[in-house]
């Protein structure tokens, strides 16, 4: 009689045992998929949330008056716009999200405003990420809350500044900061208004050294930037950078502890179940051995069943775990879930390899113990 035939007959005979075993494997795999997906999603979500703290790296012209810059956040010095391309061209450097701006304090319709021209954000090669700020179309402007409120401006209005007409694309919500008196436009428009063609006043960026094994990330950044732009100086918004790095490290470390723990618990869960199943069938092992079956055939019967349960449980567990992650993920990870949580082939492959393996390995020990001892001993344990 074929071993597969025996396995199937046993499964049909002990349906409830099979279903409970399957349920346990399925639950273990689904649980693992959910935790693993949550871990990944949580890291991504944290990274995105931390980006909303803003750019933490500023690159300004060497001749900037630092006192003035630190007091006002503005510099009157400028540098060529091409510096942006220079910074964005090398591969493997420790910064990303490069944003070139030209900013000046100016008087407009009786109010002091900050005119800010923004170039579209660029990323170095191989580090393409969604932009942190949406690009502003040429000929349009975003108006800060206080300005819009005091002057009664609204979306669609046209304003004139420095002899240039700009259509208001957005009136910003109250920010509680300098952005409330800012008028933002495309870099080219700002250069025209301020008569500074091809010039920028700073480049903002985000460092990528959250997980770097160093206590002095600024030295790394300064060395990298100095090698490309000796005419500029870089400094880091240290509290933002440290908060961002600390939060991201905390989330990664948390799941670095939780994930192996979950893998071990789920593996042990499947293993204990498989062992119990074999222990419950000691008599059969004794009968088979008494009838002259070798230990390899007896083992094949038990390991085969464990592998079948593991395989079906892994497939169903993956489907259910992924479905749960897709259903509940967007409620928890509001920024990244919709685009980033999706069925992952790698996880599926790992599940269908690991679950049958855990089940078979766990069955192997009691099966071999029973299959290699004298049949009379196994039968007596009935």
């Amino acid at each position, binding site marked *: *009689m074929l071993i597969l035939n025996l396995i199937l*007959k046993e499964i*049909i*005979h002990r349906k409830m045992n099979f279903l409970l075993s399957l349920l346990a494997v399925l639950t273990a795999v689904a649980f693992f998929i959910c935790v693993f997906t949550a871990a990944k999603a949580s890291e991504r979500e944290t990274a995105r949330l931390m980006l909303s703290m803003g750019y933490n790296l500023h690159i300004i012209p060497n001749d900037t008056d630092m006192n003035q810059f630190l007091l006002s956040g503005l510099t009157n010095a400028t540098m060529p716009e091409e510096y942006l391309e220079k910074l964005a061209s090398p591969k493997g450097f420790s910064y990303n999200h490069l944003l070139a701006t030209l900013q000046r304090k100016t008087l407009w319709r009786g109010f002091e405003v900050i005119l800010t021209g923004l170039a579209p954000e660029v990323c170095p090669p191989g580090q393409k990420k969604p932009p942190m700020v949406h690009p502003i179309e040429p000929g349009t402007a975003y108006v800060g809350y206080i300005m819009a409120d005091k002057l009664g401006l609204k979306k669609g209005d046209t304003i004139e500044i420095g002899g240039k007409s700009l259509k208001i694309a957005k009136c910003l919500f109250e920010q509680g900061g300098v952005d409330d008196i800012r008028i933002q436009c495309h870099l080219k428009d700002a250069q025209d208004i301020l008569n500074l063609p091809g010039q920028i006043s700073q480049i903002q960026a985000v460092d990528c050294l959250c997980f770097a094994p160093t206590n002095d990330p600024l030295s790394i950044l300064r060395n990298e930037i100095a090698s490309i732009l000796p005419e500029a100086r870089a400094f880091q918004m240290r509290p933002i950078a440290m908060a961002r790095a600390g939060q991201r490290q905390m989330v990664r470390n948390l799941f670095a502890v939780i994930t192996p723990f979950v893998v071990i618990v789920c593996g042990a869960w499947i293993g204990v179940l498989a062992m119990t199943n074999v222990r419950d069938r000691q008599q059969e092992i004794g*009968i088979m051995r008494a*009838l002259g*079956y070798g*230990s390899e055939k007896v083992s094949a019967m038990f390991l085969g069943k464990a592998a079948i349960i593991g395989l079906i449980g892994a497939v169903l567990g993956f489907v259910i775990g992924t479905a749960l992650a897709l259903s509940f993920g967007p409620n928890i990870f509001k920024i990244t879930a919709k685009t980033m949580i999706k069925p992952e082939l790698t996880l599926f492959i790992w599940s269908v390899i690991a679950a049958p393996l855990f089940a078979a390995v766990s069955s192997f020990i009691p099966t071999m113990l029973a299959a*290699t001892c004298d049949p009379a001993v196994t039968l007596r344990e009935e």
Partner: protein
Amino acid sequence: MISLENVVKTYQTRKGDVNALSNISLRINKAEFVVICGPSGSGKTTLLMTVAGMLRPTSGVVSIEQNNLYAMSIRARAKFRAQNIGFVFQMFHLVPYLNAAENIVLAGVAVTSKNRKARTHDLIKKFGLVGRSYHRPYELSAGEKQRTAIARALLNRPKIILADEPTGNLDPDNATSVLGYLSDFHRSGGTVILATHGPTAERFADRIIYLRNGIADNSG
């Protein structure tokens, strides 16, 4: 010929060692019907299991036709058992998820697939299981279960049948019927060793060996 030389089997328990077989030496000839009698706990089952190659003795030699059973590898001993020995248990030991016919076929590791089918069919007819061959053990009576177990033991045309209290769970009619089948096997040239604590089987025996506290009295 079956030969036991100075066979000792000691079980180690929490309360100390228990000697199930104490220095047993005996010879059983080919085509002999031997009944081993003795009260419960006298070592009958241990003796049968040891002869069947299913329980390694603590010391001593068990040989069947010059083959030292426990000098063989586990795999070789299993093969030897399948080819030469049929075993009938008191508790039947049928596989619960296989029907009667499948339980009989299950023993067919030593016969070819083609012969196995025909042989199973013959045995089902011989043991009056034609209408019951597709029934699972829980749907069979005790007598039918034991007939299935005997058919299974005979599938590979063994030279020896070892029967451990084969009538212990049967009513008198079924017990007589089972002993009749074993007697038929004996008459056809097979060797039977039957362990029992009752007198029912004694009339079929060529020789009776009494076992008490693991010591054989071969005088019968």
